[in-house]
């Protein structure tokens, strides 16, 4: 089932940005594999801002599970580089 969300999540990532674990709705998920990874600029021109900030939105589509024996789902995580906040955008399980 494919759901779209948009909820903030806490993500732990490696030095190169690759997420390793994340907490969503109280559960800790471990990232098992990277399915896809891409980057796009947000619509920086829509938001007048005092200080120019990094415009990138970094996406990771990952396979993850909440623990051994738990179902492996595909989750799309988005990181907004300007604010360094993560959002869970989609989940398929």
């Amino acid at each position, binding site marked *: 089932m494919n759901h779209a969300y948009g909820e903030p999540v806490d993500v732990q990532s490696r030095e*190169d940005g690759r997420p390793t674990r994340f907490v969503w709705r109280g559960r800790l998920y471990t990232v098992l594999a990277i399915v*896809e*990874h*891409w*980057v*796009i*600029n947000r*619509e*920086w*021109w*829509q*938001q*007048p*801002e005092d200080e*120019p900030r*990094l*415009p*990138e939105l970094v*996406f990771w589509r990952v396979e993850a599970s909440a623990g051994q024996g738990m179902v492996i789902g595909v989750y799309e995580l988005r990181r907004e580089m300007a604010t360094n906040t993560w959002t869970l955008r989609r989940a398929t399980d």
Partner: protein
Amino acid sequence: MHPFVHLHVASSYSMRYGTASPSALAAAAEERGMPALALTDRDGLYGAYKHAHACAAAGLKPVLGADLRVAPVDGLGMRDSRITVLAVGKTGWASLCRLVSANAAQDMRAPIAAGPGLVVLLGPDSDVGQAVAARRADLAAAALYRWHDVAEVVVEITDNRGSGDTARARRMLALARETRTAAVLTNAVRYLDPADSPVAQVLDAARRNMPLGAPGLPPHNGRAHLAGTAEMAAVATAIAGEADAAVLLRDTLELAQRCYLDPAADLGIGTRHLPHMSGDLRASCEQGLRGYRGDLPRARERLGHELAIIMATSLAPYFLTVADVTRRIRSNGIRCSIRGSGAGSLVNHLLGISVIDPLAHGLLMERFLSSTRETMPDIDLDVESARRIEAYRIILSAFGEASCATVVMMETYRARSAIRDVGAAFGLPPGEIGAIAKAFPHIRAAHIGSALTELPELRDSRLSMPQLTAMFRIAERLDGLPRHAAMHPCGVLLSDATLLDRTPVTRSADDLPLSQIDKDDAETAGVIKLDVLGVRMQSAIAHALTQIPGRIDLDSIPLDDEPTFELIRSARTIGCFQIESPGQRELVTRVAPRNLADLIAEISLFRPGPVNSDMITPFVQVRRGEQEASYPHEDLREALAETGGVVIFHEQVLRIIDTMTGCGLAEADRVRRRIDESARWFAEQAAARGYDEAVVDRVWQVLIAFGAFGFCKAHAAAFAIPVYQSAWLKRHHPAAFYAGVLAHDPGMYPKRVILQDARLAGVRVLGPDVNASATSWIRTACVSRPALRVPVSEIRGITDAEAARIVDGQPYRSVRDFWERARVARPVAERLALVGAFDSLHERSCPRPTRRDLVARIGVLDRPVQRQALTLDLDLDGDGFGFDELVPAGELRDLDPAERVGAELDILGFDISQHVLGFYDDLLRDLGVVRSASLRDCPPGSTVLVAGVKVAMQTPAVRSGQRIVFATLDDAVGLTDLAFFESVQDRCAATLFGSWLLVVRGRVRKAAPGAATVNATDCWDLRELDVIRARDGMAAVLAAMTRDPATGPASRARTAGAQKPALVYPTGFAHSRFAETGAPGAPLKSPPREQWTLSQPGRLAGLRGIGTNRCQGDHHGTSPQLR
């Protein structure tokens, strides 16, 4: 880990695509520890020599290539694709240049056959890459095999982390493996750092003419940056896994190494490639000596000296080339004169390149060329502007396209153009973008932000809204980025036959060959750059000469004509070359030139430095005998006597240095160029010659203080000749002179100022007449007085073809005769009628048709139905047209004086029948306005009111760094020059910039005997005052002119500590950042149409009401209502 070399890199010379300069890229690559860097700009090699230079400076090996557009292959049905081509060695570089030339010639389709020494990279944008993206591995392989047949190809793997990019990269790598094609990794670089990607994004939007976020634009991220080695290794691993990634990186490095170029051996840098000229320089100079009119023994000695220098620098072909060019241009009847330090060379004089005898003016060869000079000298030629292209074609046909091309010039983004492109990208409405852009002066894009906060005329506008802030901020980042490659307005490259192996050549808009070398690269590339400048004054002089009966050889007139110098001294120099500006007219009355030498000094002194420091006063005082000349040391008397002890010329600096140190003039010129580093050397050398410390110190102070302000005397001497010639013409053949100046508009003032000056000199101005006008300004006579005839070409909207037809078909018997034979567009015919061009056809008609009648008749003539009736009609007379509808003469009210002038301003751009200001005579009299001619009688410091038409405005650099706005008003009697200092700009800026007719209050500043200027304290729009007067009377006008400073529109408080935004040079000269860097005053050449035609409520009946609509006005003189 293998070091990584970027092989696919776009710099800012990929116009409106790349964002970083070659030097910035090279510096960044060096910082990231890379051994080499490629430059592969899109569709051109404009940055190649700069890249080679930057890599050398950064210790990197250069690689050169190009990213070229390729036509879709028939049958595959894909859109245009792109390939990257790299050059291997000297052969590859020549092949690359020729490939880029061919690609441009065929409308950017790369021929399938690439030359020897080239490697083709097929990346995501290639037809192979597009097929891979579409998951058509079969098509991709087929395309790849086709490429293998025509060139050495390599698959280019790129992953910029867009959606799907990594998967596509993997498929490309698989394809490479399957087809046994080598593969390399690149990053398709467009910017230095991820944070720069918004600039690239905006450029894409601007280039594609779409707003940001439009669906047709590709998505952006920050990944196409100059990534470091570690990051590229990670990219490779993510695509290929560790083992294969290592192979990919190794192969990338190996290809890079194959493509390393040696600047000297492969690019020819450091060697000169001059045209081969037959002929012997010495013999040609000996020939020239036969006509020499000066001191022959001295000339021989000097010739020997100069020839030794030329031989030592191997530059004989250079001089022979330039002499050849000059001779060919002149033999076609085109005026051609030298500009610059080259006038200091006797060889140039003997070869006929320069009319100036350097020995007569104490000019030095070493200032132009010496054995110590490392770069090639610069000879510039001035030719008639109207025949400049012709001059280029003459040079081209003489040297051939394998050896000659024009220099390219990059138009770069400045404030206005950046705002236009970024505004469009942000989706602002076009009208608003235009208004915002025009609100800014001609400043650099980088200064947009400061201009918004500091310029009074911008601060009070609505431009600080947050929505616009992001736009302005990005616009600033476009500063200096090339937008467009244009033909440099003056530069020509001359080379041996290998030019096309060193630069691509495309065709300019005028179908001239356009190189991709700019003026700075010419030296690197080892070719001659000759500047052939089109100078409007030369065209004006040429035209003037055609208006003088009998032939005058202007280049042979005596250079000591007293009446000419008298004209110059009295500042009656409107229209003259270089000396017509307010500042020049003021200076010329102070310096009071009596001969050519004085004129040379005057030209040298008229620059911000000397004007605002104290150089002019002592110079003038010594000349007038009010003061004794003083010299820092008696030994320097010989060098400084001509200027009364004041150091004005570079040549004097050379002589001083040589006298004090004995180093010779060649070394002295080198020292002059590095004066800041030479203090100790100078002190030591001078001491060794026996000068005591106090003297050495004093002389050094003079040399240093002089630093920014000196001028090359040879340059001034070359300039002085056309200055003198234009003044001579004005004095002795004024009508012809004015005709020339009006025809070619060389100066800073609008034509109406020139016409007014002509009238004041006793030359009549006759309006356009279809039977008497020519296609250009001509001198004619009226009641045995000299007169000027306005040409038909001055009619707004007329085409050259129409003007030519009118003149060819003269004389005309009637309006109908004109309409049938001249065949001009109806609006043009109507305008001719409104300015009276048909009046002479009806002088004996009774009743005489008014101009409005004539416009109505034209309307009737234009009707298609009537044309049939016309062919049947045999009545070819002026009246009695034989039309069904007869428009009786005199029924339509004629134009009143205000309407006439309005029509003249609208249609011709100048007022003929009456001076525009004449309509306000009553108001100006009641206000007590002082006319310009009477200002000189006002005591300095007194407060006056002046008024006039704004004809010039400048914001030149001034020493103190303050921004002063200079304006010139024409009040029918003459010109008044005004200065608006920063303290008054707040309250005056809006009116000063926005109005065309002004009343100004200020204090008279006595600058020199006879030329007074006014320091403005307040200004008003004259039309508005006139409206108030008509409505409420003079009392209301005076009330309106009394201002309460506290209620002024802008805050007047300037915090005492506010820093002035000045640029400070090492010599202490401070230059306001907003001093206009463009040509001054240009926008005022035409009267702003909307400001005049609506300015006379109650008098102007709306000229739109003329024609087929009858005017509704009252015929008895009361004012019709403005529509």
